[in-house]
């Protein structure tokens, strides 16, 4: 029989298993250190076999049916409107005042010069901060018994440790782009707990504005595949200082069917022709 080259989606599905076989099949060099006690190869393979297959590429379902690559489809618009409503925060008076002040400032800036929109979100380019699962870009899940990684084409990488560890003690934590995530599996559902992010909340307003929150901001996500082509994320954000009640939203992601490789999308250094000048977007036409 002629050997057949396995490519595309089939290869993507096999890759984690092949990688695992390579890992478990190769003894560690003498002196090599691991961060957790070494599990036996057999036990590790068995643990891996119990984990779900989330291979392939995914994206927020609002991108499905994009009519021209730059506009959302009618269905996409409907989904976005749902998310905007579901993610609407109920701020405490202190944080509502802060939010209103920024909203007013942005409205005034737009009125002053509608030709050059103010830069209201951050970062301008590169990895979107947590929760990257709400922001644009295609991504993939890489699942191992010890950790699950979320890797996005716009540069976000989240490491979710599922080896039974706790969050680090408070005196060893500091705010980072993706925060500190630990997780555990409940059947086919990955439950993710995240703290120590840079205390920003994606509001869905003001061009993807990330609004500053308190250092008690805490996220819980329950991620599961609901059918072969859809992933559901039940998302909760709580912050007793900034919010009067937690935010809950059910977010759907769709399998990407028209592209099958991870390539970066957000290298602004390459050819940035919409630079921010004095806090406003400008366009370099030649």
């Amino acid at each position, binding site marked *: 029989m002629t050997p057949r080259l396995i490519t595309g989606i089939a290869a993507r599905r096999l890759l984690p298993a092949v990688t695992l076989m390579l890992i478990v099949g190769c003894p560690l060099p003498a002196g090599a250190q691991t961060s957790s006690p070494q599990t036996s190869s057999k036990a590790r393979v068995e643990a891996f076999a119990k984990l779900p297959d989330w291979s392939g590429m995914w994206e927020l379902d609002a*991108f*499905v*049916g*994009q*009519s*021209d*690559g*730059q*506009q*959302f*489809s009618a*269905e*996409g*618009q409907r989904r*976005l409107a749902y998310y905007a409503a579901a993610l609407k925060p109920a701020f405490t008076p202190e944080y509502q005042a802060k939010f209103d002040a920024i909203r007013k400032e942005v409205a005034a800036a*737009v009125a002053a010069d*509608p*030709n*050059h*929109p103010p*830069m*209201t979100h951050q970062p*301008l*380019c590169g990895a*979107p901060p947590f929760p990257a699962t709400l*922001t*644009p*870009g*295609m991504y993939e899940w890489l699942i191992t018994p010890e950790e699950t990684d979320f890797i996005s*084409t*716009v540069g976000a990488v989240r490491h979710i440790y599922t080896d039974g560890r706790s969050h680090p003690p408070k005196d060893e934590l500091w705010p980072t782009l993706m925060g500190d995530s630990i997780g555990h599996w409940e059947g086919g559902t990955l439950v993710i707990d995240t703290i120590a992010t840079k205390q920003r909340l994606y509001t869905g307003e003001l*061009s993807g504005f990330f609004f500053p929150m308190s250092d008690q901001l805490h996220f819980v996500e329950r991620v599961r595949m609901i059918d072969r*082509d859809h992933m559901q994320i039940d998302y909760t954000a709580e912050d007793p200082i900034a919010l009067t009640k937690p935010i809950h939203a059910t977010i759907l992601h*769709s399998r990407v*069917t*028209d*592209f099958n490789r991870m*390539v*970066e*999308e*957000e*290298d*602004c250094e*390459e*050819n*940035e*022709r*919409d630079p921010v000048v004095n806090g406003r*977007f*400008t*366009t*370099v*036409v*030649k």
Partner: protein
Amino acid sequence: MGTSAFAHHSRAMFDHTKQVNLVGTVKEFQWTNPHCWIQVLVPDPSNPGAAPVEWGVEMGAPVELMRKGWKPGSLNAGDKVTIVINPLRDGQHGGLEVSVTGPDGKIIGRPAPATQ
């Protein structure tokens, strides 16, 4: 107005209520992040002796374009094209690509797959 799929900036600098047809010759096709661009030389039919005007046409990122059927070699310098854009509000010779008709008279690319 459609919501932007652009990850990295607002599209409020473009006038989405207007469309302008650019009939000209490709000077350069930039297949780059964060956006692809077409530089196109557009002669003024009412003034054939004048030098053509260069317009800059902003598009999506390479991955976005590829998903709608474009490839890095879809356009080349010298290609005769008709480009529909939403023009910049500030009056510069630039805009956001709506559609591009290539030298063979066909629109380049295809709509994304239908919603599942």
